[in-house]
């Protein structure tokens, strides 16, 4: 369905543009506002990727990040499920809290300096219903609001305002967001259409014959027919790029088996490395609704919850190792969340009931390690009604990611949230100071390569000169993009003898990002990374 058609019918034409970007308050932005100005500049440049890991069911945060400094209150409140103090995994640089003993993988990521623990993330007036709370987390609404689109959907709608009309195209040939699994998530629902696509496997796409296109009437039947046709078209459009991306990656680290989260993350790593420019990936892992028998009574470090946490931990560790192995670690961060934590006091079923705030994990080579926030305050004699009070609003995590990781201007970020919480959003210290917006610089030059082919300037804006050395004979200089496609052949000729030469690469009109200059001379071939940046 054409977004413009929809908008022209639903809102006055004069406010068309702000409504496209915002999805919230069309009245809040005049045509000369910074938001509209920002839109005119086009898509924000970045090759950063966010992987959202949903822990469905309500994860027991107190047993995942265990308060060491207030251990006795913690133990008093939940002696039947409490983790013994001597089994808590320690975290470098802090003695106040530690991790569940099953999470050695995450401990490793943290102690290697690549993980942030954010304590007691929640929102005012917590909701205790699974699916309502999940909607709140996905939509980033207030507790008493119904918002029918998702926070990542609004962000992607800002960046790609006409999606799906005109997509894929040369500047965005790939899906905007990918959900591993069969259902479409509210997280990526935009104001009009869902910005994401779902896949269960990266390689098994099925070819579809194209449909005829009889016009559709303006009725509910027409609406649904349009929708199905759209999915049909998207499926065809993206199946090739996804399959190609998956096929370019032939080697990955070993992931744990019998671990569905690991299976999903393995696909994600493969697609990122394969060159997709998709910015948001979503994976989901369930079973955290541990009302009863959360732990084995004989050994509370084992049992259902321990198994779940171990799978999360092992999967994230393998994923982080794989990113490193694939040399894309600087482009990717992972974020875990659950729709709520659980009650401080355990129940007599050796489990815990629905609670409120809980810790989140962020990990990646650009995440500043550490624990943000204090241990949850636990009353000495916790009652059944006591909940972990919120320290950080989850929308501050989202907005910090949008601002620092996806390089959005602060005014635009706040436009993506309900107006009444804009002033309360915090910019949190989640990232290392080495983080740079826009595109990740190419790896340091290899002297062996550089002696044969270099370019200057690098990074460059529109033009750069490629210098090379040939041993004589047939010589070829090509430019290759990150998808591995040859986009230019700059030079192809026979040299009578060994010499040095140079050729200009004019990149006007090409998207910013990394390109490779490739020299082929006899049996020799060398590749030089170059980076085009915005002027």
């Amino acid at each position, binding site marked *: 369905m054409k977004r413009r058609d929809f908008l022209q019918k639903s809102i006055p034409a004069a406010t068309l543009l702000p409504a496209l970007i915002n999805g919230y308050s069309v009245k809040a932005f005049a045509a000369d506002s910074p938001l509209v100005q920002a839109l005119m500049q086009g898509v924000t440049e970045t090759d950063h990727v966010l992987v959202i890991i949903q822990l469905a069911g309500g994860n027991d945060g107190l047993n995942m990040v265990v308060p060491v400094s207030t251990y006795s209150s913690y133990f008093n409140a939940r002696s039947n499920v409490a983790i013994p103090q001597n089994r808590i995994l320690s975290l470098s640089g802090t003695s106040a809290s530690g991790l569940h003993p099953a999470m050695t993988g995450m401990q490793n990521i943290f102690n290697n300096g690549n993980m942030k623990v954010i304590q007691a993330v929640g929102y005012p007036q917590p909701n205790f219903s699974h*699916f309502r709370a999940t909607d709140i987390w996905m939509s980033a609404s207030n507790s008493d609001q119904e918002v029918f689109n998702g926070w990542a959907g609004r962000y992607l709608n800002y960046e790609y305002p006409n999606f799906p009309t005109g997509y894929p195209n040369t500047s965005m040939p790939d899906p905007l967001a990918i959900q591993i699994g069969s*259902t479409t998530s509210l997280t990526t629902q935009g104001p009009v259409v869902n910005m994401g696509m779902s896949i269960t496997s990266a390689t098994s796409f099925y070819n579809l014959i194209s449909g005829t296109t009889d016009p559709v009437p303006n009725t509910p*039947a027409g609406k649904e027919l349009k929708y199905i046709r759209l999915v049909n078209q998207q499926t065809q459009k993206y199946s090739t790029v996804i399959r190609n991306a998956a096929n370019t990656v032939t080697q990955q680290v070993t992931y744990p088996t019998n671990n569905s989260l690991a299976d999903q993350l393995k696909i994600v790593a493969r697609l990122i490395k394969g060159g997709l420019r998709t910015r948001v990936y979503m994976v989901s892992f369930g079973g955290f609704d541990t*009302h009863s028998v959360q732990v084995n009574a004989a050994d509370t470090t084992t049992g259902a919850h321990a198994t779940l946490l171990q799978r999360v931990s092992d999967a994230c560790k393998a994923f982080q190792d794989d990113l490193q192995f694939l040399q894309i670690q600087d482009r990717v961060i992972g974020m875990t969340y659950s729709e709520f934590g659980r009650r401080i006091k355990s129940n007599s079923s050796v489990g815990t009931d629905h609670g409120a705030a809980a810790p989140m994990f962020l990990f990646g080579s650009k995440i500043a390690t550490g624990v943000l926030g204090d241990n949850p305050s636990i009353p000495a004699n916790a009652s059944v009604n006591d909940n972990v009070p919120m320290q950080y609003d989850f929308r501050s995590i989202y907005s910090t990611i949008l601002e620092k990781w996806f390089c959005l201007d602060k005014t635009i970020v706040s436009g993506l949230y309900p107006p009444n919480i804009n002033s309360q959003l915090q910019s949190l210290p989640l990232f290392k100071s080495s983080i740079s917006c826009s595109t990740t610089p190419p790896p340091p030059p290899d002297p062996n390569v550089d002696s044969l082919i270099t370019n200057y300037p690098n990074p460059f804006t529109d033009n750069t000169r490629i210098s090379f050395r040939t041993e004589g004979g047939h010589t070829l200089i090509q430019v290759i993009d990150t998808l591995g496609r040859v986009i230019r052949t700059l030079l192809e000729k026979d040299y009578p003898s060994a010499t040095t030469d140079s050729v200009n690469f004019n990149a006007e009109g090409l998207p910013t990002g990394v390109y490779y200059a490739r020299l082929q001379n006899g049996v020799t071939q060398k590749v030089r990374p170059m980076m085009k940046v915005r002027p």
Partner: protein
Amino acid sequence: MDRRDFLTAKRRKGEKAPVPLPAPRGLTSGINPYGGPWTENEVIHLLKRTMFGATKADVDYFKTRSVSQAVDELLNPTAPQPGPPVKEYTTSTQPGTPDANIAQGTTWINDINNDGTVQSQRIGSYKKWWTGVLINQDRSIREKLITFWVDHFGNEASDVGYGNWAYRQHDLLRQSVLGNFKQMVDGVTKDLSMLRYLNGYLNVATAPDENYARELLELFTLGKGPGSQYTEADVKEAAKVLTGWQINATTYTTVFNATRHSTVNKTFSSFFNSTIITGRTGATAGQLELNDLLNMIFASPECAKFICRKFYRFFVYYTIDQATETNVIEPLAAIFRNSNYDIRVVLSALLKSEHFFDVLNQNCYIKSPADHIVGALREMNTVFPPLSDWNTSYGMWNFFYANMINTGQNLHDPPNVSGHPAYYQEPLFHEIWINSDSLPKRNQYTDTMVNSGYTRNNIRVIFNLVPYVQQFSNPGNPNDLIDDALKYLFRNQLSYESKKAIKTQILLSNQLYDYYWTNAWMAYTASPTTANFNIVNNRLKPLFQYFFNLSEYQLS
């Protein structure tokens, strides 16, 4: 109200936000009895919504009745209930629980066996059996409505882990499928699977477990609509009412243990008129207090409204605007309440209404995976081996069951207690069924059934296209053939240009004249040799594959 206005509007602190209603659809019809035309179009609409697909035989049958007679017959099944699932799995060799009590081919539903593997095999047996029941459904609403109730109560059979209990719950809902909703909730509350799934069996006076109480209110009876204003404290009080029920795992029975029951008075909020449920003691305490609790819940008008909205979304369409709420949901809810929650009465009013047959409500329903997979089998008159060949039958049903899972619907194993998101998740609802993963798989399924079918024990089930088109009046004429097939398979008719293109490119193999097909068809009917059969069948295959791949086919 526009959502954007709503979000910027000021609200008093603590006031619950009104749930915005969707934009109007332009439907003004209500629940007055429908008195318009009763042609194949209306019959097919009624059947596709209340059964799995509309076969030509069923359409012909109901076309000779009136609207009212047709709906009454659909709501009053006369066919006997299907026989129970049988043991079709290999016998466990676990020494402790050998599963030797019953022979293969006989039912396991009354055999107690607490071996996890055996119970898991029985869940598989039950799911296959159920798929077979859907495929062999009777001429009534019964089977489709059972899928509604099983999804409504949202249990995950594989999570509960007992095939016997899953079947028991299925049978409870089957027996009361068109009966009294309040009695159904009473039964479900004490159902083994439900007690296990939502921890009712762990709910004790000393530390109430709120899991079931919360979902009873939020998902099973009252919902979270704008008028549903019960409180967190109500959930806690309801949990106390429900204390004391336990599972006897050696007899597979529900028992009430008075010593675990909370005997205090339970006080509810003003939403429930500050009702106090008197704390009881003794063996009858649990049932007496449950009666009080259900009386209190069902006294709220929200209960009927919530269930009517769910019926509406299941049988009609997912968008409920203000006109639909006023003209359809509210009067239906009144009927439901006044009938003391008689399911048959309220569905009769809905299915006979002007609104149900409103042209704007036709052809807009995205088929569920069960609708798509089972409906296609039935509409194509697919021939299966006899039920007595249980080994082959269960293996085949498993294939179709697996296809439902692959395309997003796992009967009796929804993603969570809320059921499948297509029935509740704003704003997409049924559109959730269709995504870039599921749609190609739907097409893959119909491609398989058209081209190669599914073979087990050397018996093949396949869409038999030649017999299928032979049921029409004039299959030798390619225009009539296409028109007739589309009439039953699609709700939305294709344009003349599209049909002409399809005919020419596929049925005529790019020949110019209709008689190429006519001659081929006449040659086959005059002499049904394999060679002549293949000529027509090889043209029908791409034709039907193409039909099934069109987006239009996903709608009913």
